[in-house]
């Protein structure tokens, strides 16, 4: 039987041990398995252990994979750009223009609150809005702009960008808001005092000092959109497939786990590169406020 003294002495290890075990079991081991599989061969109906780069070669040589990868990068970039263009002015308004602090809190919470609602539900909502039986169509018909329901809103890349922007924009607003809030009000006053217009002050002082927030927000929305599976599935349509969907089908209907694993590894490398790049960017541009 273990004594109390034993527990006292080893409490730290036990507390740390469980999460470490968890990480090994459910993160490191699966990564290892994934990496191993990516070198295997597919011999119908089985996968045969091997060490060869055929799967990676397929990904590089078969244009359909490159196409999906590029499309995914494009969608992620568009989502990040759209989020930035919407989130920055909003955050700027909240921090610098809105004097009423209660109102500021309410508006900030309005952006954050959807995060507490199921992601699936939020994506599904856009299907209801954009669909042929949807709100947008009935609205346009009621004001007489169109005569019959249009299918152009749903099942395309625009619908995906719209949906993903809606879903991930809080991740853009939060870091930008935080970055802007850290800038002392005396900075813009000093800039005005030294003769700069509001716009020049924004370009020379506010924007550079908020770049860490922009980079953090861009990284998050980009990586989250890049790996998204639901939006293409719900609103993407036939040419809206993204990498995650292709990967899922490799593990599912196509029954080609080695290829799917290789795709997963490529995705992982891309996301990790983006994160390191943004990290480097943030470190190099770091200033003390």
């Amino acid at each position, binding site marked *: 039987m273990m004594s109390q003294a034993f527990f006292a002495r080893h409490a730290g290890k036990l507390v740390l041990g469980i999460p470490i075990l968890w990480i090994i079991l459910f993160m490191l081991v699966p990564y290892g398995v994934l990496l191993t599989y990516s070198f295997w061969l597919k011999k119908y109906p089985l996968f045969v252990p091997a060490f060869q780069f055929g799967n990676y070669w397929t990904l590089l040589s078969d244009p359909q994979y490159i196409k999906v990868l590029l499309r995914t990068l494009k969608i992620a970039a568009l989502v990040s750009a759209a989020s930035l263009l919407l989130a920055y002015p909003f955050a700027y308004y909240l921090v610098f223009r809105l004097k009423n602090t209660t109102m500021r809190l309410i508006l900030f919470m309005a952006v954050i609150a959807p995060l507490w609602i199921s992601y699936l539900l939020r994506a599904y909502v856009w299907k209801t809005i954009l669909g042929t039986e949807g709100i947008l169509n009935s609205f346009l018909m009621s004001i007489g702009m169109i005569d019959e329901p249009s299918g152009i809103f749903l099942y395309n890349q625009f619908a995906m960008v719209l949906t993903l922007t809606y879903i991930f924009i809080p991740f853009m607003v939060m870091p930008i808001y935080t970055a802007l809030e850290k800038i*002392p009000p*005396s*900075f813009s*006053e*000093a*800039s*005005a*005092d*030294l*003769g*700069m*217009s509001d716009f*020049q002050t924004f370009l*020379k*002082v506010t924007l*550079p*000092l908020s770049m860490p927030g922009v980079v953090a927000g861009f990284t998050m929305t980009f990586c989250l959109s890049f790996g998204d599976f639901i939006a293409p599935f719900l609103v993407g349509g036939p040419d809206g497939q993204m990498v995650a969907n292709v990967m899922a089908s490799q593990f599912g209907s196509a029954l080609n786990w080695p290829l799917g694993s290789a795709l997963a590894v490529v995705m992982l490398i891309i996301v990790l590169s983006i994160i390191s790049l943004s990290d480097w960017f943030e470190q190099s*541009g770091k*200033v*003390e*406020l």
Partner: protein
Amino acid sequence: MSGIIELRNISKHFGSVIGIDHVDLSVEDGEFLTLLGPSGCGKSTLLRMIGGFEEPTTGSIFLSGQDVTDLPPQKRDVNMMFQDYALFPHMTVGQNIAYGLKMKGVGKADALQKAKAALELVGLPDKIDQMPHQMSGGQRQRIALARAIVREPKVLLLDEPLSALDANLREQMQVELKHIHDKLGITFIMVTHDQREALVMSDRVIVMERGRIAQDGSPQDLYEHPKTTYVANFIGTTNFMPARITARNGIETHLEIAGQSLLARYDRVPDTENIQIGIRPEKAHILDAESTTKSNVLVGRVAEHIYHGSSLRTTIKLTDGIEFHIDAMLPLGMARADVSGIGAEVRIGIEPENVFLFEREG
């Protein structure tokens, strides 16, 4: 219109709170003016209005004859040194200083030259390529000063410029700022809550009280002739005592304090009979035992001695329990044993000129 800055009937309301209450003020060209008062007295608001960061609710502001009340900070030929210095952390020291020159149409080479000259003036000639976060607090303060003066404004505004520095550095910078003022010859308007700072640096001090000007005068004037107990209390230390006027003879006023009589010769005599008097602790002295003078003395008993290094503060209890503090410089070689013992009866000599007379408040 004579002054470089003229404030006419300025008021500022924050909702229902009155921040500035009908202030008129004229600032002479080239003067070092200080707005002095506790926090919330309106001194910073007044300074920010001159800089263009706050709009007055009523009244007008003139800068060398031109009405600038509605002009934004960009259009005013004044510059401000901010309390937190507001140096841009992503720019070098040189870029910070040259920042305001571009908008004045100064060329690049010229701007560099001017930035160097400004850094030279504040004693940091070799820091032009450093970043602000590499600088100490005192150096940042100098850089902020250089950035504000490099545009050669008509008036330099200083918002609590020394409050972030430690005591030693502050004393050094007080003198240095004054020298820079003399060298530049432009008008300085400073805000501070530190009365010593105000006395040391200023040509003229405006003491503010709840949005109004309590007194306006030279440092000596404020120290030697305070108008109200508020001013006497805020600037220096004062022994306050209730007193009664027994006879008036021009500016000579006969007083009765705790059953003792005293003569005052002060230029402001209240109309009421019951008044408040003030005497600076260093403007009274304990008379020698041999002294036989009978005029203008107060008698009391020594209650306590407190050693202040260069001076000794003696607390004397008058009848009625009124406490009277006396600060005496300790001359060379004087030991504490030489001073009167606790409980001893002493006579305090007071010159009639050193008795302030105030109206008794509430």
